[in-house]
């Protein structure tokens, strides 16, 4: 999980796991959607998340399609009494203080709604939300405009060395697997998309099969049940999609250097890591907490920032995805220190994999993770985000309840063995962005 080291004006409150004792209710709708619900009556508001198996890993070769589809949903809806354009949709939400959002990862598309809970606001907000999800207008002119804006965003990414590094890293690591591309796609593939592609993607992927509905807030179980049925009944049944192809790890080390007119080198190094449902999830996670996942308590920060002053941000994380996501180490340092930084990242990882963490480090990491557990579910937003992950990846309903004990059950030998089994410093992908052409 991504824990950036930030000590500045920025505030980072990381939400990683959950607290035992949040009473999750779960069921399936008549249409087959999975529902996760937490009743939280303290504040007069409701959070809704609806996710579909419509992430960018379903793009095929049309990289950027899933993302553009999600972005187009609220740009107009078809109604029996006449269409609503983007302006009318936005007004329908915002006149009553409701907030709509959409996001796309490799594994899912998620639509979210936050509204006040009184019926005069919640009901119309849900009506608009349902229409956006099921009856988007997907008009040619909106498509052309939003495609232009995506292309502009891709251009903006080209002027950010960190983004250049990230894109190159995923490509080098995942090769021909769908995870090789970030959800916003590539300029060439986005340019080649048509509005028909978007319509077809919406028809196929925004369906009850694989649908996840999360409700958190000022609702009774009965109200939640009615809302879930209504959302689920509005979408076609659809068909389950084939499993994603297996990920093949890189077979030898690759170093990719990309010249860039920057003062720093942006460095990313790593390999294929772990899946969301993975027998090594906890030993890898706790181990990474020691290596570079816990900010100022981690080895990488100690060795590279605290002892040597080489970087502001240095970290490692494992991104758990449906298929194994990446294990990433990253940092930025001024150009003439890049060689030293590269060396230190390698040495630290090699030592960590070979020797494992110390007993004291494991103890400290467990205390931090378990002791900090209540913080990770201390808002409706955090709870909703966790339920969404549980729904998308079909985690067991007691996942959050059992999380602390599973962390506690990890052992030093178990962590070391898992890292030796899964992480191979001798075949690594490294991307270094910055400096002149060599």
């Amino acid at each position, binding site marked *: 999980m991504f824990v950036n080291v930030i000590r500045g004006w920025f505030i980072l409150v990381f939400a990683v796991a959950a607290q035992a004792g949040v009473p999750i209710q779960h069921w399936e709708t008549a249409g087959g959607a999975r529902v996760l619900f937490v009743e939280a009556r303290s*504040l007069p508001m409701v959070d809704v998340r609806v996710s579909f198996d419509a992430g960018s890993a379903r793009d095929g070769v049309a990289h950027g399609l899933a993302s553009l589809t999600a972005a187009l949903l609220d740009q107009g809806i078809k109604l029996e009494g006449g269409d609503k354009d983007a302006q009318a949709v936005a007004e329908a939400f*915002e006149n009553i203080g409701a907030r709509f959002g959409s996001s796309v990862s490799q594994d899912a598309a998620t639509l979210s709604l936050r509204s006040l809970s009184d019926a005069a606001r919640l009901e119309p907000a849900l009506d608009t939300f349902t229409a956006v999800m099921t009856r988007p207008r997907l008009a040619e002119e909106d498509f052309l405009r939003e495609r232009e804006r995506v292309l502009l*965003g891709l251009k903006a990414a080209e002027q950010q060395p960190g983004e250049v590094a990230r894109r190159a890293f995923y490509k080098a690591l995942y090769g021909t697997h769908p995870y090789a591309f970030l959800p916003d796609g590539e300029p060439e593939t986005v340019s080649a998309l048509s509005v028909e592609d978007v319509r077809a993607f919406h028809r196929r992927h925004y369906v009850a099969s694989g649908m996840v509905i999360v409700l958190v807030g000022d609702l009774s179980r009965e109200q939640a049940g009615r809302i879930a049925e209504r959302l689920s009944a509005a979408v076609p049944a659809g068909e389950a999609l084939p499993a994603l192809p297996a990920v093949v790890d890189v077979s030898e080390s690759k170093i990719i250097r990309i010249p860039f007119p920057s003062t720093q080198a942006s460095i990313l190094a790593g390999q294929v890591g772990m899946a969301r449902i993975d027998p090594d999830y906890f030993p890898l996670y706790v181990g990474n907490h020691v290596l570079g996942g816990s900010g100022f308590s981690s080895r990488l920060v100690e060795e590279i920032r605290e002892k040597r002053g080489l970087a502001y941000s240095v970290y490692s994380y494992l991104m758990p995805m449906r298929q194994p996501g990446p294990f990433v180490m990253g940092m930025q340092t001024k150009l003439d220190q890049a060689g030293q930084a590269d060396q230190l990242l390698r040495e630290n990882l090699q030592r960590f994999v070979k020797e494992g963490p110390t007993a004291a480090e494991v103890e400290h990491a467990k205390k931090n993770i378990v002791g900090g557990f*209540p913080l990770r579910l201390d808002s409706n937003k955090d709870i909703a985000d966790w339920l969404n992950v549980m729904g998308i990846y079909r985690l067991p309903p007691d996942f959050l309840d059992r999380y602390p004990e599973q962390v506690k059950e990890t052992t030093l030998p178990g962590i070391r063995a898992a890292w030796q089994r899964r992480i191979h410093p001798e075949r690594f992908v490294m991307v270094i962005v910055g400096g002149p052409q060599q």
Partner: protein
Amino acid sequence: MPRFLSRSILLCVVLACGAAQAAPVVTEDRLANGLRILVQEDHRAPVVTSQVWYKVGSSDEPGGLTGISHVLEHMMFKGTKRLPAGKFSEIIAAHGGQENAFTSRDYTAYFQTLAKEHLDVAFRLEADRMRNLLLREEDFIKEVEVVKEERRLRTEDDPNARLYEQFQAMAYLNGGYHHPIIGWMSDLDRMTAEDLRDWYRAHYAPNNATLVVVGDVKPAEVKRLAQKHFGALKPFKLEARERRNAIEQAGERRMILRAPAKLPALLMGYRAPVLLDEVPAWEPYALEVLAGVLDGGQSARLQQRLVRDSRLAGEAAAGYGADGRLSDLFMLSAVPSEGVSVAQLEQALRQEIARLRDEPVSAEELARVKAQVIAAEVYGRDSVFYQAMRLGSYETVGLGYKRLDALVPGIEAVTAEQVQAVARKYLVDDRLTVGVLDPLPLEPGQKQPRNASMGGIQHVR
């Protein structure tokens, strides 16, 4: 003598909402040494956030020492007479806590969020470093390099951040907001450990700080713990905090930054007052509403007219905050769509501003902005951290946390005539600064035509 006062936001009266709910109550207190304490109960989760706010930020810094508040913030983790460097973070982590700090133009603040039973630990550590910081030369030498890397990451290698920094330096020709929070690189180069010791001695004491606690706690217990840990700290003689506003602007200013980039960018800022200025109190609220009319969501004017209708902008935003310590800027920022010149985009933004001066906003727009502000008050209460942030920042800039009570009524009371009045008074060319990012090629040696906007060539889509 400690005083106890309470405050409540009568949210449901304002909202006319059906759901019965407890209003947040803030309990106020002060220790004999001057440490101010604000506590807000939030019993939704067994968690507490504790924040110590110092009344010092980059706007207090003299020329040549820019960035010193932020460097000191970094050094606050480098050990005290009792606690070795790095131990602070280690202890908080061992208790399952999250901790960090942030520096702004107006304040420096340190926070821990942890399970409620560990509040004692946070107080003990914060009290220690409030007066006992080591500030050793060898730690400083390394840490200032970390800060320079931070500056490279955030500013040097980000053309939009460089534009913003230089834009601000021109919009505020002098005064506290002229320079960046992180400081100019040349000032970081010349800074010494002795400078930091002076800055620490001048600003870090209980009578220059506010302790804000929000979470699953009882005010009396917080008070007891605060007395136990902070009570013995000695206050110092405080210099009055100056409001060093920039000189009045009398005429439009323009600047261009040429830097390696793929996209041009446009910044426009109008000098505008804040709540602390000697202006009628409704004016800053009317400016807040005006910002909402332009950029309060996807239905607001910039999205509707510039992004969707004319399609001149790929991105467009407006922003204004009434709660700064010094007079501030009403900001517009935008990125032109492909094939659109910056000049054309600037023209369109100026037309939007002119329209605000010429015509009152519609009743629907006004109602929508207000509905969003009221909803945001409820949504904001989902985060203990955010609630503590608001209390701490209002208190520290000198508004006083009670002024938060006036926010929703203040916004609610704004009329279309008042929105037009502030547009006419403040959104005028003589108060305007314009900054443009003119992209140079990213690949060295490669020629890229100068952005068309600079020569005034107009593209029409």
